[in-house]
């Protein structure tokens, strides 16, 4: 057989290979393709859904972890050390949850509530200037949670409690769980769960009810400062002159806040010194001394004077004592007083062997 004949034979034979492509077979194959497409669509949809759920779950987990890790004050005030007492501007109305973490839950209960975090408390201290707020706080003996309201200091002993101004000169503390300690100028009372305590309070708003010599200007800086509008408050204070500030701890502290938080720390110093000179026995004198130390050390670069201010804050005792001693070590170190630095560092280690500032103290004091 020749090549060409052989090739021709395979061609003819190939023609005989012909599958029966009947319509029913054709449509069976077509239906199988449609089923396959539907199956693929389901698989893709399931995969996309599962991936989306996974991404959302991871995101939610990350958010929850982040919220649990960041202390309350860190969210109200991004860096309480570098921007001390930056106002949280929480004067909004209604019942509003202002901050929450794994350790502290703070809820504003009235539209006019003004609540600012206390400096260096890492979210475990607030100043209530107006309105009402509810605090839910797990107790930490090493870091007591405090609420300063006028000249009243409320310290938690593991609890959920509400602090409310019921009148300009009356403060109501209602305890839902646990206990709190309420310190006023004259008393020191523990309030347990289910009880309420009403105490007189001296606060900034009270002054507005008093006769004023130049009420138009003099009265106007306080509400601005209470609302956290420190720049405007400071401008009004300068216009009004020194007589605009009463010789009253709350008024002096508010004026100091307006000065330093509007970027004029040097002008805050006289107000704070007036508190220390004229109201040394006031429960907030320690807070004033501590604030003065921070202004002198962090903002004015006067560490030697800061050492004395922190020493004063420490001697006042209370929940600020540990922080005050730690900052005293830092101030002494920056002032170049090595002997005192070491002495204070050793004192800190003795008083607070597991203190939360141990590392910083060891670094400044150069002790193991």
């Amino acid at each position: 057989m020749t090549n060409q004949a052989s090739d021709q034979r395979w061609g003819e034979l190939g023609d005989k290979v012909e599958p029966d492509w009947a319509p029913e077979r054709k449509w069976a194959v077509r239906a199988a393709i449609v089923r396959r497409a539907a199956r693929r669509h389901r698989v893709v949809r399931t995969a996309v859904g599962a991936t989306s759920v996974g991404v959302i779950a991871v995101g939610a987990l990350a958010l929850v972890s982040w919220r649990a890790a960041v202390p309350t004050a860190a969210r109200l005030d991004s860096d309480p050390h570098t921007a001390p007492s930056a106002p949280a501007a929480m004067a909004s109305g209604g019942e509003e949850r202002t901050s929450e973490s794994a350790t502290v839950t703070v809820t504003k209960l009235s539209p006019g509530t003004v609540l600012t975090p206390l400096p260096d408390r890492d979210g475990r201290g607030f100043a209530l200037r107006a309105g009402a707020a509810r605090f839910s706080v797990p107790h930490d003996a090493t870091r007591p949670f405090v609420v300063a309201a006028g000249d009243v200091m409320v310290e938690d002993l593991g609890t959920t409690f509400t602090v409310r101004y019921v009148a300009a000169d009356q403060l109501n503390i209602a305890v839902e769980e646990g206990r709190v300690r309420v310190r006023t100028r004259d008393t020191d009372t523990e309030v347990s769960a289910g009880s309420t305590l009403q105490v007189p309070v001296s606060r900034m708003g009270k002054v507005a009810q008093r006769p004023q010599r130049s009420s138009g200007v003099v009265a106007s800086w306080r509400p601005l400062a209470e609302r956290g509008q420190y720049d405007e408050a400071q401008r009004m204070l300068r216009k009004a002159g020194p007589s605009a500030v009463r010789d009253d701890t709350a008024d002096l502290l508010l004026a100091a806040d307006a000065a330093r938080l509007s970027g004029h720390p040097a002008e805050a110093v006289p107000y704070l010194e007036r508190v220390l000179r004229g109201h040394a026995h006031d429960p907030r004198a320690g807070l004033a001394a501590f604030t003065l130390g921070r202004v002198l050390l962090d903002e004015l670069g006067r560490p030697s004077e800061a050492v004395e201010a922190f020493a004063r804050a420490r001697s006042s005792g209370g929940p600020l004592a540990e922080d005050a001693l730690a900052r005293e070590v830092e101030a002494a170190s920056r002032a170049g007083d090595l002997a005192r630095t070491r002495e204070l560092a050793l004192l800190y280690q003795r008083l607070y062997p597991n203190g939360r500032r141990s590392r910083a103290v060891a670094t400044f004091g150069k002790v193991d």
Partner: protein
Amino acid sequence: MPPTPKLRLARPFPDLVKGGPVEFEELFTRYGQYVARLAARMLGSGDGEVDDVVQDVFWIASRRLSQIVDMIQARGWLATVTTRVVRRRLRRRHVRRLFHASPYRADVPAPGATAEQRALLARLYEILERMPTEQRLAWSLRYLEGEPLDAVAAACGCSLATAKRRVSAAKNVIDEVFGDD
């Protein structure tokens, strides 16, 4: 003397418009039978396996319609995809045979063939079954399907020279076996 190509299926459908959009329904309607026949000739097996190949080919086509320029180009594109799908099946068949899992039985769909032609086809596919897959595919496309060598090279995804070499190697074996017939 080189074989004379028989371009039986090379002619496009007369009503096809060059550059027109490709719709899946039309593609399947026009070329379903072509793909089934091509698969049957390359595989040498019956309905079930052919249906699987047709399904695979048009499943791929349904997801890559954008790659098909028009209905005229579609035929060559489908031939290439069919060759690839059949190649995978033949290789699987080789592997199964290595483990004696599934011995090949000739089941060639040839309804119009005589008894003698059926016997010849059965013997041909037994020989092709023992041949390297690439040579088998090239020879089948060239002689059973009657494609020109450049179309064989395109469908097999190789150069023209390689296609020629594969076709020649397979032809030598076939001629040797069937030379006396």
